[in-house]
C-alpha cells in the first residue's frame, strides 16, 4: 500500500515538505499514515496507543524531514517506518512489561501433539496473546523485514535477545494455532 501511495509523492513535494510547507507535509502524512499505523497497531497494546504513536511519529517526521538525505527508492518509507517502530518500541520499554510467558520453546517440536491442547485460535487472536516484545519482534522481523541487528539496536537489547524472542513467538503461535507436528 505504501508503495503505491508513496509513489505519488514526487521529489518536489518532498523538497517542499523539507522546507516546512504544511500542504506538502500533509501529503507525506496521507501517503504514510496507513503504513505507520499498521506497524504501531501491531506493536502497541491498544488502538489508542497506536494512534498516539502515529501522531508522535509524524510530529517527528515534520520536524526532522529537513535533515532527511536519502535518495534511493524506498528510503523515505524505510526512514518513516523506522521512526514509527522506534516510537512504538519506546512505549513497550517504558512500561514495565509483564512478560509472564513461561515456555520451554526451544526443546524441539517433534512429538508434541499441540493440537490436543484445544487451543485452536485464529492467527489474529494468537498474535494478540503474545507478549508485547515477542509480537514486536516477530512482526518487525518476519513481516516488516528488519534484521535482528536492527531490532536489537532499536530495542536496546542484544541480537541473541531478538533471536530468542522470535523463537518464542513462533513456538507460542504454533501452539496456539494448534498446528500438528505431523509425526
Amino acid at each position, binding site marked *: 500500500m505504501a508503495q503505491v501511495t508513496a509513489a505519488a509523492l514526487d521529489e518536489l513535494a518532498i523538497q517542499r515538505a523539507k522546507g516546512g510547507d504544511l500542504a506538502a507535509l500533509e501529503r507525506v502524512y496521507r501517503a504514510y*499514515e496507513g503504513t505507520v499505523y499498521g506497524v504501531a497497531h501491531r506493536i502497541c497494546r491498544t488502538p489508542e496507543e497506536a494512534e498516539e504513536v502515529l*501522531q508522535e511519529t509524524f*510530529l517527528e517526521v515534520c520536524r526532522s524531514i529537513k535533515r532527511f538525505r536519502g535518495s534511493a527508492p524506498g528510503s523515505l518509507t524505510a526512514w518513516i517506518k523506522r521512526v514509527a517502530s522506534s516510537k512504538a518500541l519506546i512505549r513497550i520499554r517504558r512500561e514495565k512489561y509483564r512478560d509472564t510467558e513461561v515456555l520451554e520453546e526451544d526443546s524441539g517440536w517433534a512429538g508434541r501433539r499441540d493440537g490436543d491442547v484445544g487451543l485452536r485460535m485464529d492467527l489474529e487472536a494468537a*498474535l494478540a496473546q503474545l507478549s508485547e516484545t515477542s509480537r514486536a519482534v516477530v512482526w518487525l522481523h518476519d513481516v516488516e523485514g528488519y534484521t535482528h541487528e536492527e531490532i536489537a539496536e532499536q530495542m536496546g537489547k542484544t541480537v541473541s535477545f531478538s533471536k530468542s524472542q522470535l523463537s518464542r513467538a513462533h513456538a507460542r503461535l504454533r501452539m496456539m494455532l494448534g498446528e500438528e507436528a505431523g509425526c
Partner: protein
Amino acid sequence: MLRHCTISELLEVRDGEGTATARAHVEQCEACGAELDRLHQRVAALRALPRHSPPRDRWPAVREAFVSARRRRRWSYTSWAGLAAAAGLVLFVGVNTPPRPAVAASAPEEIASLVEESQQLERVLHSYNRQGRVVNGVTAAAIAELEDRIAVVDVGIDRAQLQAAPHEAVADLWRRRVTLMDRLVNTHVQPVTYVGY
C-alpha cells in the same frame, strides 16, 4: 544430528544462517522439512493479515502540534506563560498561588499548582538551554522524543480548554505535562546512556 531441529535451528536454516548439520538434517528429515514448511506458511499468513487503518484522521492534531512546537521553539521556553494565558489558565496562576495541597485539592487548585510546577520546570530548562551544552546523539533523541510528547499534550490542553472539558480531564493533562517536563529536565541534567524513560 540424532534429534529433530529446535525452532531456533529451523529459523536459522530459514534465514540462511543454520549450521551445515542442521541444514543437512532438514533436507533429510521429512518431519523437520514439514515443520519448516509450516513455518513458511505461518509467516505468509502473518504477512497476509489485514492492515489496520487509523480510526480517526490525526493530521489536524499533528499539524497543530507541529505548528505550536515550531512557535514554541521560536518563542523560547520563557514564553510558556503566554501559552498558558492563551489557554485561559492564567486565571489560576496568581502571584500568591498556594503550594500544592497534599490532600483533597479541588481540581482548579490542583491545575493551578500543576501549571506553576510546569512553569518552574520551564525556568530550570531555560537555564540549562542557555548554557549551550552539546549533548550526545542518544540524549538529543531522548530530548526530541520528550519535546514531541509535550507538544502533543499541549495540543490536548488547548483543546480541553476550548471545549470546556471537565476540570479532572484538564488536571490529568497537566499532570502528564509536569511528568514529561520533569523527565525532560532530568534528561538535560543527566547524560542519557539508556533511553528507557
